[in-house]
Structure formats: C-alpha cells, structure tokens
C-alpha cells in the first residue's frame, strides 16, 4: 500500500508527538510506531524535566546552561545547550497548558526537586530544578501530548515497524514500514521525514530500556550513509535494580536518598564532596563500580545500597510511589524500611544521528544537510548532552528539539514537491524479509542476542580499555556472520514478531560495532566514556565530536569541532 503525507514521523514518544503537534499546523502528518503511542519508552521516564522556573528557590537559565555544559564534560555544543536551557521555561509552561498534571507546591505552582548535577551559582550547591509528576513524569507528558495529537488531524499508524528510509541521492523520500498485524509492506511518501525512534539500550545486557529500544532507525540511517555522532558516549544510570536493571529515579536521591557501600559508608562524599549523591551519573556509576572492584560492595558482592529509609514516608508516598511499588513487586523490599540493592544500568545514548538545532540531519562533519530528513530525541545527537547527559535534560531535549524539528519541517514542506518511492526500494525490503524467512541456518536469534548483549556489557560498559575493545570488535565480526545463519520457525505474515526480532538484532549488532569502534579510537576519558588506559580528559586532542561512517573498509571516522561559546573547558569537580 502507498501513502502520501507532507510529514512522516517515525516514533511516537515525546519528540515525535511534539513534532507532530507542530507539523500538523502546516500539512498532513503520519506517525508510525512499532508499539502503540502510549507504550513508547518516553513513558518510563520517572524523575523530572528540567527548567529554571525558580518556583521553589532562585534559579536561572544561565546556571542550567552552565550545569549542562559541565555535566556533559564540555563536549556539548553550547549553541544547542543555550537554546535548550533558554527555551525550557516556555516549554514547561506550554506542557502545563496542554494538560500535563505536574506535582504542585502548596501555592499551586509546578513543584520542583533536586537532580544530579543541577546547581545554583555555577556549582555552589544543588538546586530544585526538576519539574515532576510524582515519579511518572514521562508518562504524564506522553499522555498529554498523545491526547492533544488525538484531536488534531494527526494520522497514527500503530504497530507499523520501519524497515527502510528511502533516499534519492541527497533527498529523503519517506520510509517503508511493515504493518505488523498483516505483514503488508507500506510505502510512506513524505516531503519531510522525522526519525524520532528513541534509544538503543538493548545493545547491553543490563538496561533500563524497553525491549523495543533497539535503535532500528539508527541502523537504517547508518546503512544509508548517514554518519552517527559520538556513539562512544553511552550513559549508565547508577541506580538500576540489582539483577533487573529497572530504573530507580535520581529523584530518590533528590529527595534525600543516599548511596551506601558494604562498609556502611556514604561513599559519594569521597568522590564529589560538594554535591555528593547528586553528582552527575557518569561519576556516580564509576564510583559504584570502583567501590565494588575494591571489595566494598554489599557483603563483598557486586552491588551497593540506595538508602531512602531516611526519607519521610509521606514524601515517598506522594513523590516516589512508582519506584516504591517496583521495589515491592520485583525485589520484595519496602524501601521505607530497607535499602535497595542497585547497580549501574545502561540508560541513555548521548550519541546518535547528527542534527542541527532544528533537527536537520547532517550528512557529514561539515554539517551539510540531508534534504527532507530530520531527527529528534534520543536517536539524535544535537549535541545538547555532550559526553554525559544530566538527569531531567532528556525530556526537555525531546520537547524542545521535537518542536523545533516540527516547525522546520512545516516550513520545508512548502518548498518541495511530492516524493515518489520507487518499486525497487519496496522489492529490496521484501527480498530481505524473504531471506530471513527462508534461511535454513542453525542459529537461534535469542541465543545470539543474549551472547551479544553480554559481550557488550563485559567489554564496553562503564570502564573500557584497548584490550577489551579490540577483542570485542574481533568477536563482533563473527556475530555478523552468525546473524546470517539465523533461521526462524514462524513463516507467516500476521504478527510475525520472530521475524522482526531478527531484523532488530541486525540493527543492534551494527550499532554495537559502531559503539565499540568509536570507543576504541577515542583515546581519552570524558563523561561516560572512561578509558582505563587513558584516564585523563585530553582537550588538546579530543575536544571534538566523533563522526562514524559506514564504508566498504568498515567503520571510519571524521571529526567536528565542539561549539564553545560561553563556558571554556575547566576541571570537572563537584
């Protein structure tokens, strides 16, 4: 089946929905999602969305700007960060007017709490900047945006999985997707196409990300010659539930929780004397892993405790009900009585499809634009987060840059004619599917995936080094071979999730390879990328963005300078 839209949006999380609300003012909009819109992983965001409203204590967008630059270890592009922080207050007010049920102060204003790395007076002390809806902030915003889109004229295509982004030279023509329910391939012709497909935490064994977070569109774009920026920077959130990786929000520490090691010490006092447990996530994750490596895990084992027993029970009930329920359901622990066993969990990709501040995708390190192709949200790299994202800046990023991409697309569609996807693009996708269905190989997708995820976790997570990364890259090439040898049992058309899982695994492995290669070439430690063999940040050689390209010779690299405007790189101490 063939469709024609002015704007096509792949992904129905916060970035996609916010863009849709904007683009629909100028033309027709289709939103594809492989789930249902309300199932998007944005809905799992817990703790908050950052804006210097100053509702609870004095704050300023400039402090927010500084914190974000420093939190990102000076790799973030400061023009983008300034746009995000300056636009934050307007963004939150707009969301509130759309119906988001933010938690409130006694005077009825939007309540705010402390979050990691957010400070007043350029690092003097933590500040209350995260606006929240208990610990379900993403859910609250996702529903409000979806509900508002629902009575605009946005056309939703739930359970449509993108299989290809179609290019004609340097112009994007739209995308091909499978209607999961029937197996039919649909061609979506669009003047402008936005990739807003979220993250790819499923590259790693232990992750807070949804099973659907497989980075399909990054894999597709990379195959089409679009570079991927800063892929070595993957954030591990310090507090995942031990053994499961389920997120326990930083808001738990924002409300007074603290991390405790096996000796009963509040160890963050040693690593970040000023803001302690509210240091940025990369620093806390390294601190936890260091404590464990040096034998100070709980009972000498591989986890530490997040202790929120000192937090008032009323606050737990009102502001952290969801994580309290998670602890009870999955760990059998009442966190008001007992500490929570936690371990870092793969959480957020700073890297992604390079874009300018209006979502236009760059085809190379010079910033030349791919016509008609846009990206926003976690799949994109603007780069507002640099080498390490601060908590509550990702929701902000999705809404700020989703809106900007929506506006840019609304303008762009007036300047170009209808696109027409050719038959051979559809045939190529069908051939790929046939190849998987007809494969008589010996491998099972589930086993290959589990081994791949474990390998990535072992060799390329919180700490990295040349030996591990070299081994990893060698082993990953065998995974590409194994991928071709996977066969599936389900040969049908309707709801063939076994087939789709093989396709997703292909993207995961491709992204794993880019992450590993990007990590190997960056010979310094910065933000979430910690090299044991190069433990220092090296601004002289590495104050630049990595651009990974797919070539016949494998992954190759080029570089783009960091935009430094207001804040010169300085020592990163907290």
């Amino acid at each position, binding site marked *: 089946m063939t469709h024609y839209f002015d704007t096509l949006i792949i992904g129905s999380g916060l970035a996609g929905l916010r863009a849709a609300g904007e683009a629909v003012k100028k033309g027709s909009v289709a939103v594809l999602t492989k789930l249902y819109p309300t199932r998007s992983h944005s809905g799992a965001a817990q703790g908050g969305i950052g804006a210097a409203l100053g509702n609870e204590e004095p704050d300023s967008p400039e402090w927010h700007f500084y914190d974000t630059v420093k939190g990102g270890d000076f790799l973030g592009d400061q023009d983008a960060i300034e746009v995000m922080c300056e636009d934050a207050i307007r963004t939150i007010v707009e969301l509130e007017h759309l119906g988001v049920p933010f938690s409130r102060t006694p005077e*009825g204003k939007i309540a705010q709490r402390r979050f990691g790395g957010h400070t007043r007076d350029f690092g003097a002390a933590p500040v209350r900047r995260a606006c929240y809806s208990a610990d379900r902030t993403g859910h609250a915003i996702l529903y409000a945006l979806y509900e508002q889109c629902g009575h605009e004229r946005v056309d939703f295509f739930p359970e449509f999985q993108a299989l290809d982004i179609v290019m004609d030279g340097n112009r994007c023509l739209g995308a091909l997707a499978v209607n999961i329910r029937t197996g039919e391939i649909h061609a979506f012709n669009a003047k402008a196409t936005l990739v807003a497909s979220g993250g790819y935490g499923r590259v790693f064994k232990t992750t807070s990300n949804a099973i659907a977070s497989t980075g399909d569109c990054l894999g597709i774009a990379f195959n089409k010659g679009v570079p991927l920026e800063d892929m070595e920077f993957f954030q591990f959130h310090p507090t995942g539930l031990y053994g499961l990786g*389920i997120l326990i929000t930083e808001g738990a520490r924002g409300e007074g929780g603290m991390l405790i090691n096996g000796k009963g010490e509040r160890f963050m006092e040693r690593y970040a004397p000023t803001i302690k447990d509210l240091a940025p996530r990369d620093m806390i994750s390294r601190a936890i892993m260091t404590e464990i490596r040096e034998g100070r895990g709980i009972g000498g084992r591989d986890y530490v405790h997040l202790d929120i027993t000192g937090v008032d029970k009323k606050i737990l009930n009102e502001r952290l009900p969801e994580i309290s329920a998670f602890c009870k359901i999955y760990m059998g622990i009442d966190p008001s009585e007992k500490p929570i066993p936690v371990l870092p969990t793969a959480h957020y990709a700073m890297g992604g499809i390079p874009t300018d501040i209006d979502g236009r995708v760059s085809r190379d390190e010079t910033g030349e634009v791919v016509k008609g192709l846009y990206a926003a949200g976690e799949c994109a790299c603007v780069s507002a987060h640099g080498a390490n994202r601060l908590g509550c800046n990702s929701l902000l990023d999705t809404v700020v840059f989703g809106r900007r991409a929506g506006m840019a697309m609304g303008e762009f569609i007036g300047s170009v004619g209808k696109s027409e996807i050719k038959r051979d693009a559809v045939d190529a996708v069908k051939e790929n599917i046939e190849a998987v269905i007809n494969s008589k190989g010996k491998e*099972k997708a589930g086993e290959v995936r589990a081994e791949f995820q474990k390998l990535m976790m072992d060799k390329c997570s919180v700490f990295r080094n040349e030996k591990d990364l070299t081994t990893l890259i060698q082993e990953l090439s065998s995974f590409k071979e194994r991928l071709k040898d996977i066969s599936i049992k389900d040969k049908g058309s*309707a709801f063939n999730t076994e087939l789709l899982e093989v396709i997703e695994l292909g993207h995961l492995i491709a992204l794993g390879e880019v992450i590993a290669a990007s990590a190997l070439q960056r010979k310094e430690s910065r933000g979430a990328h910690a090299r044991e063999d190069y433990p220092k940040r090296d601004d002289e050689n590495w104050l630049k963005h990595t651009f990974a390209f797919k070539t016949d010779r494998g992954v190759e690299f080029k570089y783009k300078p960091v935009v430094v405007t207001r804040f010169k790189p300085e020592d990163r101490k907290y």
Partner: protein
Amino acid sequence: MEQYILKIKRFDPEKDRKPRWEKFRIEMEFTDRVLDGFIKIKDAIDGSLTFRRSCAHGICGSCAVKINGKSGLACQTIIKDVPPGEIVIEPLPAFPVIKDLVVDIEPFFGKNREAMPYLINNEPPPELERLQSPEEQEKILQSITCIMCGCCASSCPSYWADKEYMGPSALLKAYRFIMDSRDRALEERMNSIAKPHGLWRCHSIYNCVEVCPKEIDITSHIAKLKRLAVKKKLSGFFKG
C-alpha cells in the same frame, strides 16, 4: 531454578481454525516475571510464540494477558506469587484474538476517544502555569496513573455483554478531565458519558478494581461520576 509448566492458549490465523492449547516446560527463577517465561519459550523452544511486550516493568501496558484466570500484566506477575504447578495463560478476554496472546486492542483505544480525552480550556492562558492546588490535584492523582493495558475492560461483565459499552478505562479517562480543576468542558464531557452505553452500564461489580495493575479504584471513580450526573440530571436512561 524450578521447573514450571506454562499452558498457553494459542491461535495462528494462518494455520488454525480454532484456538489450541500447548504446554511448555521451562526452568524459572523464583524472582522471574511470567513475561520472562514467554521470552524463554520464544528464545529457546518455539520462536513462533507471539505476545506483546516492551517496558517489562509495568509502565507501558503492552503485555496484559489472562494468567490463571485473571487479567494482569505478564511483566508484573512474579513467579513466586503464582501457585506452583501449571500456569495457565490466555489472551485477554473480550477482545478479538489476532494471534496467540495478541488481541485487537484498537476498539478499546477507540472507546477511550469517546470520552474526549484531552484537556479543554479555551480561556486565554496565563503567562505562567495555571495554578492548581495539591488538594485539587489529589482528586485526579489515581486516575492519571492509568496505562491503558485493558485489564479492566477485559474483566468487566458489562463490557463482555455490551459491545458498545465504553468500559471502565474510558470512563476513568473522562473522570480524569472532568475533575481536573483546569478543564472547562464539564458539560460536553458529561454528555459524552451519561448515556446508556456509558456511565449507566457500570454495575459496580468491582472486577476492574481487582485486576488493575496500577491499583486504581476505578469503580469508585465511576460512582463519583454517576453522582455528578444525577446532580446534573443527566440520567440518560431514557435517551436513545
């Protein structure tokens, strides 16, 4: 690791004329989720087993199924909380089956739209946020936690009997906006639910409350709407 038998009701529209049962014997940890069992089967025994899933921790609402006779989220049902022996898994009742445990959830989402599920306020917005006291917000706190999983509707005898009934989650959604101090569309919204296939089809059976994975007291929310409708003389019994 303990051995469990998952007895799953299966249906492949391209092969089966009617549903069939299949038993899978798998090793599970005490702390595993029922969803982990599905994934183990799909990964190691039968890749064609079809189910929805995404977040795996009770926030996205994808994996609602019937577990030992009761609707619930597979990702939020822990093995240690299930009686030993066979675990019987079926697709959500009252929804047409597409394949194995996947049901057609589209009509359910469609009914939600009848409740005009979006904030309506055409007054000029203030420069900053619209004020809402914590007491005002308290009224909608439970209702905003709904994840649209469908457990409630699938367990409701009224929903089974009346294909046009809006169902508990749509009514809860109406409540969420009617009771929001910022909303200005009380009349239209009340009119959209105070109708025979709406508010008055709820007979306070409480099945929805029993199965709601977010522990929302849906029936008492609906009861408040009924009281409001009576107060506004919107009984709707005698309207078409």
